[in-house]
């Protein structure tokens, strides 16, 4: 067992974990933060994306011990004071989700994308999310949802 201290969504946890424990299992099984999902076993699908020290990471591809001392943001920490994040709002407004399984990872990946590029073209959104798979939407409305959030975060009127 290894002892780690991780701050997740602003709260600090100290836990004993097996060294082989994946970060995604630590979040889901130890901290009961089940909003982060698992969709594959080869780091393709992105359902497990979280932010580690501000950068998007596939949490199935990182060990919990590697997150020792880190600051992690998951989907559960995105809304502030009951106010949805513009990305969450965009996905709801634009029908950017159907079954909702890929959605947490998709939103967290989009969060990182918009940090790096606050004013992306549709093409840049598509390429920015190429590490995340969705089987329901065909991505059409995911692109719209991200553009909705991008506009809102820039303080502009949201696209129709």
């Amino acid at each position, binding site marked *: 067992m290894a002892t780690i201290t991780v701050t997740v969504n602003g709260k600090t946890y100290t836990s004993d974990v097996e060294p082989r424990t994946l970060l995604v299992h630590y979040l889901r099984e130890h901290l009961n933060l089940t909003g982060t999902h698992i*969709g594959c076993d080869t780091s393709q699908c992105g359902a497990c994306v979280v932010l580690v020290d501000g950068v998007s990471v596939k949490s199935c591809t990182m060990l919990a011990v590697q997150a020792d001392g880190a600051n992690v943001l*998951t989907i559960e920490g995105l809304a502030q004071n009951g106010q949805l994040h513009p990305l969450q709002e965009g996905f709801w407004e634009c029908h950017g989700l159907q079954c909702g399984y890929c959605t947490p990872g998709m939103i967290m990946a989009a969060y990182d994308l918009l940090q790096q590029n606050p004013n992306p073209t549709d093409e840049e959104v*598509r390429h920015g999310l190429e590490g995340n798979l969705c089987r329901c939407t065909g991505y059409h409305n995911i692109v719209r949802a991200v553009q909705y959030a991008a506009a809102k975060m820039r303080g502009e009127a949201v696209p129709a």
Partner: protein
Amino acid sequence: MTAETMPTKLVGQAIKRREDPQLITGQGSFLDDIKLPGMTHACVLRSPYAHAKIKSIDTSKAKAYPGVVAVFTGEDMLDLNPLPCAWQAGRVKNNVNTPRVLAVGEVHFAGDPVALVIAEDRYIARDACDLIEVEYEPLPVVVDAKKATEPGAPQLHENAPNNIVMEWEAGDKAKADAAIAAAEVVVREQIINQRLIPTPMETRGSIARYEPATGEFTLWTTSQAPHVMRLVLTAFVFGIPETKLRVISPNVGGGFGQKIFCYNDMAFTMWAARKIGRPVKFVEDRSENYKYSTHGRDHITDVELAGNRDGTITGLRVTTYANLGAYLSTIAPGIPTTLYGRIITGVYRIPAAYVKVYGVYTNTAMVDAYRGAGRPEASYLIERMVDRFAAEIGMDPAEVRRKNFIPPDAFPYDNGLGLLPYDSGNYEAALNKALEIVGYADFRKQQEEARKQGRYLGIGISSYVEICGVAPSKWIGLPGEGWGAGLWESANVRVHLTGKVVVTTGSLPHGQGVETTFAQIVADELGVPYDDVVIEHSDTAGTPFGYGTYGSRSLAVGGTAVYRSVAKIKEKAKKIAAHMLEANPDDMVYENGRVYVKGSPDRAKTLAEIALQASVAYDLPEGMEPFLDETTYYDPPNCTFPFGTHIAIVEVDPDTGIVDLKRYVAVDDCGNVINPMIVDGQIHGGIAQGVAQALYERAVYDENGQLITGTLMDYAVPAAHMLPPFETDRTVTPSPVNPMGVKGAGEAGTIASAQAVMNAVIDALSPFGVKHMQMPATPENVWKAIRAAQASS
């Protein structure tokens, strides 16, 4: 949405989904999110061989591994029956072979389960699986459906000579033979509809709990049909009373057909939970989902289409080898028969058509319904051949379609293939609209110009019809199509004392927005606030028996059940209001949530007042039962037949073989639309899966039966940058089958799209002499098709 911003009529409005708030905040409850006290974790050891005898299994090391609770093999579970095959279409009789919960004696595909480890956590369970020693004696393997029927092919099951599950036919062979013999033009192809893996983003799984005191099981499972699972698990697999099992589908992360069926983990989690006295959880990893859970398509078809030089199609003859995998999955035989062969002529009036289908066992994962289920295969076949015919006679493919469409005044239309009559349609209107949006005439000029510059543009048209709202029980049932049950759907509507409305339904969503759509209908029809309506589903405790969600049936069948229950509520409300107002029940009018006396709109009672009276019940009409509570079991009189035209534009680089899908236009007609945002979303997702088949996806087994596209690294589910935006529009031809005039939209996009893209690719490659190529149009396949055409010219 607040009450102030709610439009007065909700049907037809793009209401934001009530399902979403929990899903966008990480508060959903998917199967793997559920934790029960004392819960254990299961891991399955699977056969690495595609066909082998099991000589011995040694579980001793695994049993001794710290943290392991138990290890079981197939021999331990002989009290369980094999999983059932419920749709024995095509005169399947004595050659049904369904999987055991764990294999006994022999394995028939790579991934067949041979042992089960139950442990304190999933890491330990996986570790212990590696400690089980199995001795196999490998046997010969066959993975190709056509080769499996040839003399000398390896045999999978003793009761199925030549590996044939069934030989099935529809149409008139003599007429088709004669039409082909007499035709001015006959085009022939072998068309392969490659095997696909449905790939819902959430894999499958089950959690079972057993209560020894009552002998009752609770099963949480990723199912599109919890009531059906309850029935088949108790009646067929366990042989226990149905009342001893409650099945719950939690949030389900996509299904696409794969989650309709009865799988072994449902049974082994239940069996093991009873055995060890603790709850058991099993969740597939993605590789297991690919190896074990059902695949789709996998047809090899020889097709001949006959016609005249004026563009009239006169005949169609089809022979299909449908690969059903190593065993029969729950409804597998019905897919390449009822849902494929019976609609093989598509949107065309073809006077002589005949189709023969061989269902075949091979050493591969089971094949069953995958989004569209038979209809994409049918639609691909006919639409590819119509283009092939148009090219052969030098006629515009849009014109050939127009010339052969079933005309709008021919409905209801009997296609002569044993299907119920197509309910309604206007195929040319949808084609014309799509051609107009895409700018067809201009495109042909651009194409001409581009070719002069050495650029290869192509356009592909797909005009489709499909079968939704399945199905009238009288038609689909055992004596007819071989479905071993009904296909009606249920809904109960109750108006509680507070005026709030509770709907329970046998339909259930896994992304389709059923809660939102049904609530829109109920709010409108009852005239109550949308937020006063709750839709409950997915739990066999508390919902009426229903067949579940698949085959684009939730709205047309389940939604109609809701609609009818609401109508019954309104009738009873009128009687109670008449009594309260001392008026004649025949003079009562129900409007906007209140009942008034005809001609005296001020003499009225609101639904809430009536519901209160119905509940407290001290002053009801003589002989009337209390409460507003109505149930409907709706059995549709016909299926519904959505249609439309999709058009793709591609540019192909002949040097690299890369296909650039530049535009995608979809005009769909699913009858009346309840929520256009949700319908468009369904169409988008459907298109993505069809485009994926055309350009990217293919499940490949090598000759030893190893799935070499066994992970998402090898199986090319498209990401966002691999798909274009979609231009969607619609025509509206209401269905006469149900009172809302709705048809269904869940599968249309997939049924329409693969051939739109392939027709475009082949149109682009026509200057090279390419007449057909198999999917997927990967760079390698395109490059080879060009080289092959050039070599043969």
